[in-house]
């Protein structure tokens, strides 16, 4: 493999691994903030215990999200030096702003939240987890505005042999970045909702701390129902954005080979890439694809054959990823709806099979997030900045294949180890359930005695 393929693989591994932790951070910080706010408002100790229990799981996940995020900032320069030189004038800004606006807030207030139980007022303590949560979303916004620029470059001119920013406003209001932001953040909320429902289901199946986990489940079910609906709607809007800016990605997502007006949507399809056709096409919804892609049943949708082969993304990976993401998205709506209905009636314990399904559903939103990024990034190929710079021209010139093999092996070993530690700690903490009373208060009071 050459440096380009190796660097792509390394970016996929490191970004994909980072994105195991990010969605849960986004969603669970918000849920924990709700819980603590309820505690502050009602004074009900159960909500304090909820804050502590889910907060501990949040912190384990948060730590890994932070450390794996550093890699990405390093990697643009290490592996993609030509890219960084060519677009740094416009792409570097959102990254630097992300650090200044979001990372500082997140890292400072998480310290306050972890250690500040007895040092600051209850309200200020609850406010600090809100700030952490808002900062996490703010960080997502700036990184997705950066990524949105790679998907739909705006606000620049080619000058001095590079892309130079001429319109910061265009960068900040890039519709691609914003629609992606909503879709991604909401997808993170769904991860957290299913995470909380799944772990609660585990304990409800064991009849452990029933009122605690019913309350947790119910809160997560409401959150899950709202967010899985919104993630679907935002996905629909995002699809329109994709079809207008990146016709090749859309064609690959849907495995559409021939340009058509009023294109139908095939519920069942399977691409035959070699022969540039689909080996299976069944259950067609007339005009479905045009409607989906442009919100207009008669719109023309470009097929892959309209583009030279070297400008098409890998069709199979893009198609399968998109299909599984969409199918999972629908499953989440269905499961959340059932979960919400059962939780509202308060009859969860009487449906052990459903609880089991919810337990085993924990990994599914993670999977949906990962395949979503495959659609976004693999579907953009062969471009690193759509229509502007090819991935193959973006890689570092000074780096040798051996160096990348070495770092890739290093990342795989280190991340493999971190994954084991993370799963071990999360499972153990989740299984153990909440502590009796609220021992952390006792503990911190004791430390506070100094």
């Amino acid at each position, binding site marked *: 493999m050459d440096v380009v393929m190796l660097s792509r693989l390394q970016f996929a591994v490191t970004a994909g691994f980072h994105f195991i932790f990010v969605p849960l951070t986004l969603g669970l910080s918000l849920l924990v903030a709700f819980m603590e706010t309820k505690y502050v408002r009602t004074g009900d100790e159960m909500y304090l215990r909820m804050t502590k229990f889910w907060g501990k799981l949040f*912190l*384990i996940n*948060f*730590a*890994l999200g*932070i*450390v*794996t995020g550093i*890699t990405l900032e*390093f990697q*643009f*320069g*290490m592996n993609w*030096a*030509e*890219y*960084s*030189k060519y677009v*740094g*004038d416009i792409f*570097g*800004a959102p*990254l*630097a*702003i*992300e*650090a*200044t*606006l979001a*990372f*500082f*807030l997140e*890292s*400072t207030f998480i*310290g*306050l939240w*972890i*250690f*500040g139980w007895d*040092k600051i007022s209850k309200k200020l303590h609850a406010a600090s987890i809100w700030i952490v949560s808002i900062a996490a979303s703010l960080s997502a916004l700036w990184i997705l505005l950066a990524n949105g620029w790679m998907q739909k470059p705006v606000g620049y001119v080619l*000058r*001095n042999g590079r892309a*130079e*920013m001429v319109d910061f406003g265009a960068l900040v209001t890039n519709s691609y970045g914003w629609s992606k932001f909503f879709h991604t953040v909401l997808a993170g909320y769904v991860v957290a909702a299913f995470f909380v429902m799944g772990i609660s289901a585990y304990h409800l199946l064991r009849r452990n701390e029933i009122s605690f986990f019913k309350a947790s489940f119910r809160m997560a079910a409401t959150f899950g129902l709202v967010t899985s609906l919104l993630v679907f709607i935002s996905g629909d809007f995002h699809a329109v954005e994709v079809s207008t800016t990146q016709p090749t990605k859309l064609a690959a997502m849907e495995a559409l080979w021939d340009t058509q007006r009023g294109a139908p949507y095939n519920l069942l399809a399977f691409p035959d890439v070699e022969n540039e056709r689909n080996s299976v096409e069944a259950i067609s919804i007339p005009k479905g694809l045009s409607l989906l892609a442009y919100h207009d049943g008669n719109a023309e949708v470009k097929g892959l054959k309209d583009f030279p082969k070297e400008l098409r993304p890998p069709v199979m990976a893009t198609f399968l990823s998109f299909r599984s993401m969409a199918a999972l998205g629908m499953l989440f709506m269905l499961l959340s709806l059932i979960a919400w209905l059962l939780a509202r009636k308060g009859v969860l314990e009487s449906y052990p099979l459903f609880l089991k399904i919810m337990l085993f559903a924990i990994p599914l939103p993670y999977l949906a997030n990962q395949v979503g990024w495959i659609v976004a990034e693999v579907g953009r190929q062969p471009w690193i900045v759509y229509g502007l710079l090819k991935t193959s021209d973006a890689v*570092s*010139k*000074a*780096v040798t294949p051996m*160096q990348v093999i*070495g*770092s890739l092996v*290093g990342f795989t070993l*280190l991340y493999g180890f971190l994954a084991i*530690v993370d799963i071990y*700690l999360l499972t153990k*903490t989740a299984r153990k359930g909440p502590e009796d009373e609220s021992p952390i208060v006792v503990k911190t009071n*004791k*430390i506070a*005695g*100094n």
Partner: protein
Amino acid sequence: MEFQIIWFILWAVLWAVYFMLDGFDLGVGMLQKFLGRNEAERGAIIRTIGPVWDGNEVWLLTAGGATFAAFPTTYALMFSYLYTALLLILFSLIVRGVSVELRGKEEGATWRSRWETAFLISSFLPALLFGVAFGNIFQGLPMDADGYHGNLFTLLNPYGLLTGIFFVLLFLMHGALWIGVKTTGDLSKRASGFANKVWYPLLVVAVLFLIHTKFATNLYSNFVGTPVLFVMPLLAVLALLGIKIFAAKGALLTAFASSCVTILSVTFTGVIGLFPNLIPSSIDPRYSLTIFNSSSSPYTLKIMTGVALVFVPIVIAYQAWNYRVFRKKIDPNEMEQGKAY
């Protein structure tokens, strides 16, 4: 003033503040196992940086992000040229973050002891490697029209290593004073005792560094050209002496403040010497990366200046407040066994 110069100053400030803040975290990491005689003491030591270390590290990420945004060519070439060295720093930072945060997430002496070892190594390596990297930047990297002609081993030259050792000793001193200031009783005494002792090798290495700099780098030429600038290295020397004077008297907080001034003025001395280079070429000055030939467009720099001038003071304000919230000293005897962070 030209935006490039403003950003050069900001770049220097970001690095200097990073070294001043994360410097004691790194020192604490290197010292935890040696100064902490039992579980409670080791818990107390790590607790002194618990609420702040993450916020301190963000100064590094911001320095990196600022390099990308303001001097993209330097960012691109520096990171790809120093690939393996940066990878080692990166791995260390990852392991360090995980060690601090996960050490207390599970009961058991073995679990803790292993994370403490990981914490030790992952604090030592960045301290050394940041020194090595800056030593090599001061000397210049072997780069010309054909790119870069060095590798990890050429970085480990005498001057690079000397700077690395200088950084390690600076951070050991800084971390020991921090532990001295932030804890009570025996532990605090032991930390200040260590600071008093490590000051001697630090002084020797600092003197060697100043002398070697004369022969290995061009850093002094800016000072000779504008002698008033000598005030910065002079401040560094005075602050270094101040550390010993105050530490010997037991005025640990003042000694720590002197240590902060030392780190800031050492960084500024180096960066003033570099100007207008960000990375000089050691073989062909035409290929030096300067703030003028590697910067972003004036428009981008203007936007980023606005962002920095508004938000950096806000960051400093809430970080300072955070330090104030956690100003109380930590007594190892009151760290509940097995519950320590």
